[in-house]
C-alpha cells in the first residue's frame, strides 16, 4: 500500500517543507532555464523581423518543427487530466500523491503548446482572427475548419485545466497559509479565498470538483481528437485516416505518463517526497505506460496494414518512404523508443526501479516527439506527386525555439513546485484514511 507510515500531520509537514525558501542552486537552475527561454525569444524576434524564411519551412513541408512541438505538448498535457480527472472518477487510490504534479504539468504543457501555433503563424499578432468577434472586415471564422475547432478546443482545455488546478489547490493553500508568515501568508491567503474547511465548504467543493472531473474527461478526449483532425481532415496521404483520433489520444496518454515519470522521479528526490511518492505509485504509472505502448504499437501496425490493404498507391508510397525514405531512421528510432523499449516494463522489478523508469521515460519522450515529426513532416515530404517531394531540415531558429519550449515548460514547473504544494495534502490524507479503514477491515476479518 502507499504511504504506510504517514499520519495526517506528517503529510502537512512533508509537503510544506517543499515550500521552504529555495537555495542558490535552485535559482541558478531557474536562471539557466530562463536564459534558454530568452534565447528562444530572441530567435522568435529574429523570425518576426525577417519572416518565416529563416525557418526550414519550404514547399512541400510547410508544417514541421513548430506544429510537431504543438502536437507533442498538447499530448503531454493529456496524462495530467487522465490522472487528475479520469482516475478520480474511477476512485483510483494511487493517483492521490501524483495527480497534482500531473495536473500542473498539464497546465504548463498547454501553455507551451499554445505558443507554437502562434509562432508558426509568422504574424503572431493576428492570432485573434481565429476567434469570432465583432469586426469591420465583414468576415468571421469558418466554423467548418479544423483550425477553428483547434482554437476553441485548446482554449477551452487551457481555461478548464487552470480552473481544475486552482480549485484543487484551495484547501492545500489554506493549509500553507496557516503555516506561513509574511508575504507567503498573504499570497497563500489570497489563493485560499478564505477557505477554512467547514462542512459547507467541503460539500460544495466536493460537488464542483467531481463535476469538473466529469467535464474534463470528455474534454481531454475531444481536444486531442480535434488536434488529430487538423491532419485527418485533409487529403494528404499519411494523414487522411479514420484511426487518427484514438491513435493520437493513446499516444498522448502514453507520452504524458512518460513525462510525469521524467518529472516526478528527480522531483521526489530533490524535494524529499519519498514518503508520498513510493515505488507503488511509479509501478502503477508504468503499467499505464506499458498498456498505452501496446495500443500505440497496434496503431502503428494498423495504419501500415491499411496503407497496404487499401491498395492506394499514394498511401502505399507514403508509408514506403516513411520506413525507408530520408526520415526512415527516425521511424525506426520511434518504433524502438515507443514499441520495443517499453516492453521492459513487463518486468515488475523494473517497474519499481526508479533509475530504469527514468531512463525508459526519456526514451519514450524522444520517441513520441519523433512520432509527431514523422507523421507531420514525413507525410508532407512525400506528397501525392513525386515532383512535389522534398526534404525538410530545421533551421537554427527552429531548433532554438524548440529548446526554449522545453525550457519554458520546465521553468514554470520548477517554479510551481517550490511555491505551491506539488502534492495534494488533502487527497493524500484521504488515502491515509482509506488505508486505516482497510487495515481495520483486515483486522476485523482476521478476528
Amino acid at each position, binding site marked *: 500500500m502507499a504511504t504506510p507510515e504517514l*499520519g*495526517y*500531520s506528517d503529510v*502537512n509537514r512533508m509537503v510544506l517543507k517543499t515550500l521552504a525558501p529555495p537555495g542558490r542552486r535552485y535559482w541558478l537552475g531557474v536562471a539557466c532555464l530562463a536564459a534558454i527561454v530568452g534565447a528562444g525569444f530572441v530567435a522568435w524576434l529574429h523570425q518576426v523581423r525577417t519572416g518565416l524564411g529563416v525557418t526550414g519551412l519550404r514547399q512541400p513541408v510547410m508544417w514541421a518543427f513548430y506544429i510537431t512541438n504543438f502536437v507533442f505538448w498538447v499530448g503531454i498535457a493529456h496524462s495530467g487530466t487522465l490522472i487528475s480527472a479520469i482516475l478520480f472518477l474511477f476512485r483510483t487510490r494511487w493517483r492521490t500523491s501524483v495527480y497534482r504534479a500531473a495536473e500542473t504539468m498539464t497546465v504548463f504543457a498547454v501553455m507551451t503548446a499554445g505558443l507554437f501555433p502562434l509562432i508558426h503563424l509568422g504574424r503572431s499578432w493576428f492570432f485573434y482572427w481565429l476567434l*469570432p468577434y465583432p469586426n469591420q472586415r*465583414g*468576415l*468571421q*471564422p*469558418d*466554423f*467548418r*475548419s479544423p483550425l*477553428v*475547432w483547434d482554437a*476553441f*478546443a485548446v*482554449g*477551452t482545455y487551457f*481555461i*478548464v485545466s487552470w*480552473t*481544475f488546478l486552482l*480549485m484543487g489547490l484551495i*484547501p492545500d493553500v*489554506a*493549509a500553507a*497559509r*496557516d*503555516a506561513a508568515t509574511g508575504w507567503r501568508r498573504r499570497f497563500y491567503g489570497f489563493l485560499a*479565498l*478564505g*477557505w*477554512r*474547511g*467547514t*462542512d*459547507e*465548504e*467541503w*460539500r*460544495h*467543493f*466536493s*460537488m*464542483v470538483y467531481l*463535476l*469538473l472531473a466529469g*467535464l*474534463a474527461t*470528455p*474534454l481531454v478526449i*475531444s481536444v486531442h481528437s*480535434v488536434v488529430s483532425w487538423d491532419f485527418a481532415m485533409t487529403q494528404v496521404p499519411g494523414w487522411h485516416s479514420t484511426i487518427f483520433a484514438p491513435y493520437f489520444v493513446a499516444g498522448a496518454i502514453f507520452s504524458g505518463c512518460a513525462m510525469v515519470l521524467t518529472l516526478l522521479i528527480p522531483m521526489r528526490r530533490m524535494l524529499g517526497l519519498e514518503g508520498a511518492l513510493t515505488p507503488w505509485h511509479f509501478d502503477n504509472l508504468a503499467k499505464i505506460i506499458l498498456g498505452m505502448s501496446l495500443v500505440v504499437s497496434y496503431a502503428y501496425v494498423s495504419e501500415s496494414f491499411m496503407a497496404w490493404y487499401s491498395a492506394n498507391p499514394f498511401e502505399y508510397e507514403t508509408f514506403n518512404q516513411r520506413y525507408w525514405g530520408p526520415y526512415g531512421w527516425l521511424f525506426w528510432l520511434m518504433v524502438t523508443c515507443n514499441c520495443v523499449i517499453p516492453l521492459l516494463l513487463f518486468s515488475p522489478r523494473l517497474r519499481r526501479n526508479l533509475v530504469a523508469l527514468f531512463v525508459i521515460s526519456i526514451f519514450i519522450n524522444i520517441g513520441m516527439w519523433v512520432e509527431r515529426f514523422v507523421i507531420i513532416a514525413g507525410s508532407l515530404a512525400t506528397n501525392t506527386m513525386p515532383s512535389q517531394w522534398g526534404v525538410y531540415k530545421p533551421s537554427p531558429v527552429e531548433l532554438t525555439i524548440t529548446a526554449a519550449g522545453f525550457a519554458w515548460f520546465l521553468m514554470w514547473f520548477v517554479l510551481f513546485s517550490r511555491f505551491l504544494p506539488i502534492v495534494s*495534502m*488533502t*487527497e493524500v*490524507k*484521504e488515502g491515509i*484514511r482509506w488505508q486505516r479503514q482497510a487495515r481495520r477491515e483486515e483486522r476485523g476479518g482476521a478476528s
Partner: protein
Amino acid sequence: MATPGAPRRAGGCLVNDAAQVTGIFAEEEACAGAIVALRAAGLDAARVFSPFASEKVAEALGVRRSPVRFWVLLGGLAGCAGGFALTIGLSTLYPHRTAGMPIVSLPPFVIIAFELTILCGALSGVLGFLVHGRLPRAAPVPGYRVEFTNDRFGVVVVCTAAEVARVDGVLRVAGAREVTHESA
C-alpha cells in the same frame, strides 16, 4: 420577536448568554460520532471543520447534495445553446461557401457547441461554488483553528450558557481531545 433572554443569531453566532463550544478530534470517526451524539442529546453542530472531505462527517450531518450541480447544468446548457447560436448565426450572417459544404453544417458546429458546453459548465460550476461556499471570505469563521487544515477535526456547537457543561460532556464522551468554551 425573540423571547427576552433567549439566544439570538448574529453573523452565525449567538449573542446575550450564548456560548460557543468547540470539540477538537483527532479521528474523523470520533468527530462523526460526536455529531450523532449531539443530535441524540437534542443539540446540533453549528459547523464542522475537517482537513479533508470526510464522507463520515457528511453522513453524520445528513447533508444534502450541493446545488452547485444545477449551476453546472445550466451553464452547460447555456454554453451548448450559445455554441449553436454563435456558429449558425455567424455563418448565416457572413455566408462564405467553402469546399461545397452547406453554409449551416451542423456536424462541425457540434464541436464548437461541445467545447462551449464544457467551458461554460465548468466556469458556472466554479461560480456556483463561490456563491454557495460564500467565498472569497475575509471575515474569520467562529471556532476556526489552524489545526483544522492540518490533522484535527472540529465540531462547533452554539448553545446557551446553561447548556455548556452538557455539550462539553457529550463532546468529551465522544472522544474530543480538547474542548474549548467561548462566549459568543
